[in-house]
């Protein structure tokens, strides 16, 4: 199987940030400031669902059905709508990958990378938001991270595009919901 190209990776990185922005972010202020994605294990488990079937033609449908069932499901039964915007965009992204990538094994590889990037990106952002005392410092680190990720690619996005992504990610951090029961 041919390795993914730099351009393909760039698209997956951009897709992963678009999906991260659809996740709910929570903030704890006590005893120390911490950030985490709401029900983060559900996102981590997506990668596992993609590995459950050997045949790539079955693995992707199984993965997306698992996501459609488990993401909007509340942990104690009933429904949990907070993942619906993420799920809608995930389905849309998987459909686009399926339409543009004819090789099944590469299709699965792209989705694996996408889920991996979502997990890594969300975790990195949570760490940056928690570790920096001021918004300006956090913004500088987020900006450095995005630029570093794109710098290895052949066609890096424009400064304006990068800045827009940094702004959106900072707003995502600003809008983190204070977790219940931590005060």
């Amino acid at each position, binding site marked *: 199987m041919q390795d993914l190209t730099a351009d393909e990776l760039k698209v997956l990185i951009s897709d992963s940030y678009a999906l991260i922005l659809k996740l709910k972010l929570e903030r704890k202020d006590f005893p120390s400031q911490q950030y985490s994605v709401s029900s983060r294990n559900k996102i981590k488990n997506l990668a596992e669902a993609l590995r459950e079937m050997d045949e790539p*033609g079955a693995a992707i449908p199984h993965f997306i059905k698992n996501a459609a069932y488990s993401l909007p499901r509340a942990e104690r039964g009933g429904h949990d709508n907070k993942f619906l915007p993420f799920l809608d965009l995930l389905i849309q992204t998987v459909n686009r990958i399926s339409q543009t990538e004819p090789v099944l094994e590469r299709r699965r590889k792209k989705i694996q990378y996408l889920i991996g990037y979502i997990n890594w990106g969300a975790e990195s952002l949570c760490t940056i938001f928690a570790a920096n005392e001021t918004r300006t410092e956090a913004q500088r680190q987020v900006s450095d991270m995005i630029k570093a990720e794109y710098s290895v690619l052949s066609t890096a996005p424009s400064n304006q595009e990068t800045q827009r992504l940094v702004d959106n990610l900072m707003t995502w951090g600003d809008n983190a919901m204070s977790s219940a029961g931590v005060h």
Partner: protein
Amino acid sequence: MNYEEFSRINQFSWELAIMTMMWNEGKFRAYSRAKIRELLTLVQSPDYQQAIARNIDEYKPQSPTRLVFPTTVRMSENEPEEHASSVVTKQKELHGKLSSALIKMATDDHSLMGNSIVMKYTLWDIGILEQTFENAHPADAHGRLNRIEKLLDAEAIPGKERIISLLKKAVDGTMNQTNVTEKRGEN
């Protein structure tokens, strides 16, 4: 499992899931998760035909204990009982239909029913449908259908059109019953 076998199970599971959906207390949901699970377990047994026949005989759905109607609706005295009776009738009807479908499919290909993924996917698909149509009003029902269509595209189901057609019929049934309730409210 190869792709062809997987696709057949996936199609079959969606069709079973849709078959179980009904209007009850303002929600589009499966008639009884517990009874569906029982049938999906029984059909895997060697004497599944007799076991399912017994299960149908023994199925006595409980009348809804609390009826949910819009507060503006004025009901005659016997309407709650009529509604409860129609819900029970529908539950029994769906249980019978699901039983027949499972027996037919098991007779045609018992190896298919022996596959535990059928049960898992049918229950998942029911969960997906209930979530998708949660609080759905007839006016936005077709928007919800679009979400299922996109999901089926992502699942690469060859028989997508058939699934959507079956689902539309099930949702239209919901819409008709909703309209009846709304007309009552106008009187």
